[in-house]
């Protein structure tokens, strides 16, 4: 199994396409950091426009932590596409090249082979997230410094002490890893039906867009299914940045407002990931390789 995973990773990282994702993340983060470095003040003024008359804040609002949060909001919407580029190609790409049949005549079961491919896709996904974390979090901390984190929510503001932020990012990226693993497993599942990678990549994105729209629509008839859609829970990482307050409305350091929500979202995402993988396995084990 280990050598199979090694071979799959070797193939992934020898493909130029793999580096498009890493390059795209670096370029996007670089542009945002560059823009905020040059004109961050205007961004903060715009953000604080409604509050400037009622709130006075000392310190550096535009710090590395806030910049990373802004970037995660933007990027975690687009990262699924970059993940789909590889995950949705794992089986269909091999079918297209004709190499799938070569892999399947080697002395491994289809289950072992599929598991190795799945693990490799997950490793790629995690590496992309680590890359994102290095550039977005550590890069921003380096460029903008650190301070307390001020967040503007829909109906309230959150102020997190500087010392209370970093662990939240670890949690947020951990959660994002679960969400992106679900995306990868969806792409992987759709990959088993096609013999070229474009179809599954587009299908993966279409499913995500379609479910995201269902998740965000406030139409009562859809409310019943929303809790079961993985897209509803993909933004669960934001929960790490909501802090509990005590009776005197003071923030409780190290707390999370709704940990149950994170747990529930994690369970839904893991269940989807397992479900997609098992479905892929069931289809793949019976599939006739005609390509």
């Amino acid at each position, binding site marked *: 199994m280990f050598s199979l995973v090694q071979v799959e990773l070797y193939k992934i990282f020898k493909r*130029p396409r793999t580096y498009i994702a890493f390059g795209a993340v670096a370029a996007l983060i670089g542009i945002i950091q560059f823009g905020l470095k040059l004109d961050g003040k205007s961004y903060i003024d715009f953000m604080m426009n409604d509050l400037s008359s009622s709130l006075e804040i000392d310190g550096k609002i535009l710090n590395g932590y806030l910049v990373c949060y802004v970037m995660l909001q933007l990027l975690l919407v687009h990262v699924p596409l970059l993940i789909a580029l590889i995950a949705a190609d794992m089986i269909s790409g091999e079918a297209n090249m004709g190499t799938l049949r070569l892999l399947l005549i080697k002395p491994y079961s289809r289950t072992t082979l599929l598991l190795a491919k799945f693990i490799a896709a997950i490793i790629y996904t995690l590496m992309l997230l680590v890359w994102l974390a290095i550039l977005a979090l550590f890069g921003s901390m380096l460029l903008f410094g650190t301070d307390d984190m001020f967040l503007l929510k829909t109906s309230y503001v959150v102020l997190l002490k500087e010392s209370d932020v970093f662990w939240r990012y670890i949690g947020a990226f951990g959660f994002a890893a679960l969400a992106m693993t679900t995306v990868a497993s969806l792409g992987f599942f759709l990959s088993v039906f096609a013999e070229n990678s474009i179809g599954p990549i587009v299908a993966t994105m279409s499913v995500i867009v379609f479910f995201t729209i269902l998740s965000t629509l406030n139409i009562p008839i859809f409310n019943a299914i929303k809790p079961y859609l993985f897209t509803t829970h993909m933004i669960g990482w934001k929960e790490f940045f909501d802090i509990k307050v005590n009776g005197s409305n003071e923030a409780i350091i190290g707390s999370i407002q709704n940990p149950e929500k994170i747990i529930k979202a994690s369970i839904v995402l893991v269940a989807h990931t397992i479900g997609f993988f098992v479905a892929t396995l069931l289809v793949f084990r019976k599939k006739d390789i005609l390509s």
Partner: protein
Amino acid sequence: MSSVIQVQGLTKKFGHHFTAVNDLSFSVNKGDVYGFLGQNGAGKSTTIRMLLSLITPTSGSIEIFGMPLQANRAAIMQNVGAVIEKPAMYEYLTAYQNLKIFSALSGVSKTRVQLLNELDVVGLAARAHDLVRTFSQGMKQRLAIAMAMVNDPQLILLDEPTNGLDPQGIADIRNLILQLSRVQGKTVLVSSHLLSEIEQVATRLIIIDKGCKLVEGDSKDLFDKSKTVVAIQTLNNIEATKQLMQTSWASHVLVDRSSYKEICMQLDEKLLPTLHKNLVEMGIGVLSVKPMHSLEDYFLRITSTPSYV
């Protein structure tokens, strides 16, 4: 002689209406170069894919090395190498990297020197570090063979290995098959739609059509030269046929298959020079006398001679 492949009643249906392989039975013995002949769409590739467990049979049984395929797939595949139709490989990798990957996948640990030596055997040592996407079809085919041989398998399945190759490439593959069989003692199953290709290498062969077996047996019996079909072209084929029908050659003329385009005769190959001489003596303007070896011709022989089936 022990059977390396034993196939019984193999059938594959796609949907309810199309039967690609129908109740096929055959056996391949150790050390055979087994020719698997059939026209395009006859069911050769489907059968080979079932032998490699890429396609699940609808019914029937396959035993390889004396073991049922389905229950012993991994153990069997450890000793099988295959090139399936168009050579497939990772085009964004070099020849060496491709070979390295398939060596690892086969559970074989080979050094760089060993892998380069294997590329040398198929004449690709000089291009070992070039991307496969820059290779010609012939080079890809040779690399595919190196990849199939990387685990030193006892059974080699080659599905149309000469497709898209130039004459030199075809000759190379033919020599390789002979070397694998005669020098290394491997069992080779090679499919083709060209009888002339199989004729030169196969020790035994099967011909299938529409998924059914037409004939199976030893090459020396099936390529009986005393029943060679000859196509003769003359200046006036109709007139020449009339003349031949009045001679002792009349019993050799295949009337049903002769036309204004050519005269078909069936005779011992040794009689060809005498026939040619007689034709000239009869004043027939001979343009060509050609022994026919195409599969189409062989099919026609089979269908016109029920005792062959």
